[in-house]
């Protein structure tokens, strides 16, 4: 993007002044270099979001922003129902509550080197991954309703994990305000066999080790030290979330005019928060958040079973679980007045700073863990929320590397087998049902996640705590 169009607020914050139908400015975070590499569509989409009714303060894009659907991926926007604010199915996306959780293992790298391949095979055999894979838990209608209402808390009540896991999950593992009856029969049917599955695309389960600590004190609070082995799980609400996105995107796009909303792009499909469809979507979307939380909780349980077999000394406690594609009701202070806002984060991570009342006591002084997944075979990062992010971005930070290259280009440039061998030579064991899928997710097809987290740190959206690198990657 051409930087001359922006007002420079700081080295890492760039503003597009309101013009035309924009109600608020658009602010993009990132270094001059990252922003100049971004697609023009990011500015166009952030600008379009700024035109939506009831938007508060600014339409934001995070340092990993890229061209998305209506909203940029990496977009954050908050709406006030008292000002005619909207809820947008496009602003949440298809993979509702896609997110990352990271587990401690209590092990060090040397403890697992000898059994790495065995561990990879056992994880690949136990955690269903890839297209068409089905879980072992098939939910009937009543159980489905309980799951959609109860989230990870439901999963724990069914024996998948421990109560202490819930302290380390956003919303304590259960998104309030879900309305399972707002979830269509088709969406339920699509989920029936998909509980406890990773999915495909950029979803993965990785065994990682800590290779650098940037902030000793926070790392200690997070239970991280150099060489420690952790497990990260990246997946979402599976078919149920995809179907809810598909249905409400259509319904909201067609109903926008009835609600007097002019959509510059149909993909911005939205409805007033205080409308029948808006409320129904909120109930369905919150149910999908619960589905994603339950899904990651079940995969956690499966992962623990594998470690219990292969490495019985391991103790898999949850560090934290974050969600990326959500709309959440939160209280934020705007011009000295606390207001209840509907904060959309599309490919962005909530990042509450130190002292936030919703953080568990053990993490409250340090701030929320912000888990940033890298691309397959590259580093991932653990950051912590800051106080200033409250003013900068409604306490939001980046979510990952973001693609630099299309899947199409990636398959022309790389072959899956060669990538698997190359990563193996670097000590990284990949297991995937699809070699073409591996090629499409080639590390080189993504932006350098290190630049993204550095810019996030410099912008004050979150602060760097530790870097982790993969040892085993199960790719869906």
């Amino acid at each position, binding site marked *: 993007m051409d930087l001359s169009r922006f007002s420079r607020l700081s080295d890492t914050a760039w503003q597009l002044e309101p013009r035309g139908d924009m109600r608020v400015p658009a602010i993009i975070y990132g270094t001059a270099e990252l922003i100049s590499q971004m*697609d023009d569509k990011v500015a166009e989409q952030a600008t379009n979001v700024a035109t939506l009714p009831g938007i508060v303060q600014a339409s934001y894009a995070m340092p990993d922003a*890229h*061209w*998305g*659907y*209506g909203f940029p*991926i990496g977009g954050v926007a908050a709406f006030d129902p008292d000002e005619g604010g909207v809820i947008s199915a*496009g602003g949440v*996306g*298809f*993979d509702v509550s896609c997110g990352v959780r990271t587990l401690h293992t209590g092990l060090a790298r040397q403890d697992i080197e000898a059994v790495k391949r065995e561990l990879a095979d056992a994880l690949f055999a136990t955690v269903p991954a*890839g*297209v*068409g894979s*089905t879980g072992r838990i098939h939910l009937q209608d009543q159980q489905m309703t309980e799951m959609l209402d109860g989230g990870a808390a439901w999963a724990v009540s069914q024996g998948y994990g421990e109560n202490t896991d819930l302290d380390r999950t956003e919303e304590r593992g259960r998104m309030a305000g879900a309305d399972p009856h707002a979830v269509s029969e*088709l969406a339920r*049917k*699509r989920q*029936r066999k998909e509980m406890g599955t990773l*999915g*495909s*695309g950029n979803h993965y389960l990785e065994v990682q080790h800590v290779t650098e600590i940037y902030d000793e004190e926070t790392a200690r609070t997070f239970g991280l030290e150099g060489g420690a082995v952790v497990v990260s799980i990246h997946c979402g609400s599976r*078919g149920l979330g*995809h*179907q809810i*996105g*598909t249905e409400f*995107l*259509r319904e909201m*796009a*067609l109903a926008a005019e009835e609600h007097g909303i002019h959509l510059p*792009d*149909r*993909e911005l*499909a939205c409805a007033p928060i205080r409308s029948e469809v808006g409320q129904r979507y909120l109930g369905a979307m919150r149910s999908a958040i619960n589905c994603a939380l339950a899904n990651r909780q079940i995969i956690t349980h499966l992962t623990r079973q594998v470690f219990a077999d292969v490495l019985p000394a391991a103790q898999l406690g949850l560090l934290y679980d974050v969600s990326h594609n959500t709309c959440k009701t939160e209280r934020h202070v705007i011009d000295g007045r606390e207001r209840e806002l509907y904060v959309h984060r599309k490919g962005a991570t909530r990042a509450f700073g130190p002292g936030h009342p919703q953080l568990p006591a053990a993490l409250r002084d340090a701030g929320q863990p912000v888990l940033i997944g890298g691309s397959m075979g590259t580093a991932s990062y653990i950051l912590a929320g800051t106080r200033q992010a409250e003013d900068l971005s409604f306490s939001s930070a980046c979510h990952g590397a*973001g*693609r*630099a*290259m*299309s*899947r*199409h*280009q990636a398959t022309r440039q790389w072959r899956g087998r060669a990538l698997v061998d190359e990563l193996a030579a670097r000590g990284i064991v990949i297991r995937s*049902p*699809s*070699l*073409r*899928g591996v090629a*499409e997710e080639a590390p080189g097809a993504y932006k350098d996640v290190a630049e993204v987290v550095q810019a996030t740190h410099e912008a004050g959206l979150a602060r760097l705590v530790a870097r982790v690198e993969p040892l085993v990657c199960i790719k*869906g």
Partner: protein
Amino acid sequence: MSATPPRPVPAERWEHFPHVADMGVRGFGSTLDEAFAAAAHAMTAVITDPDAVRPEIRVEIHAQAADPEILLYDFLNGLVYEMAVNGLLFSRFRVRSEGDRLLAEAWGEKTDVARHQPCVEVKGATFTQLDVRREDDGRWLAQCVLDI
């Protein structure tokens, strides 16, 4: 509707176009129905090689929308649903639309991971670059970006 599968969509009638995070599918045809069938073929090609998918099982997709672009959205998402719920892949398509209604048949088989090596799951057809139109040369085009 017939008891035999239609012929495969010729290679020159479909293509992929890049979207940075995902993949776009585009079909062409001498009629809107043909362009829709070709777009569906392009969608299968995002997942696997359509030539490797045997046309053994037939399913019907019904859709209704006044806007032909929404009709394409519904048709492709109908196929996504069938693939997800019944573990199917499709390689042959026959589309009949009339006014705001569409009735299509898709022929395919159960996914065989070893043989098909499916590389991604399509989460849904989106409104991004959703376009159905008759081009200057009289040929129909049907396209959209898939979320994968």
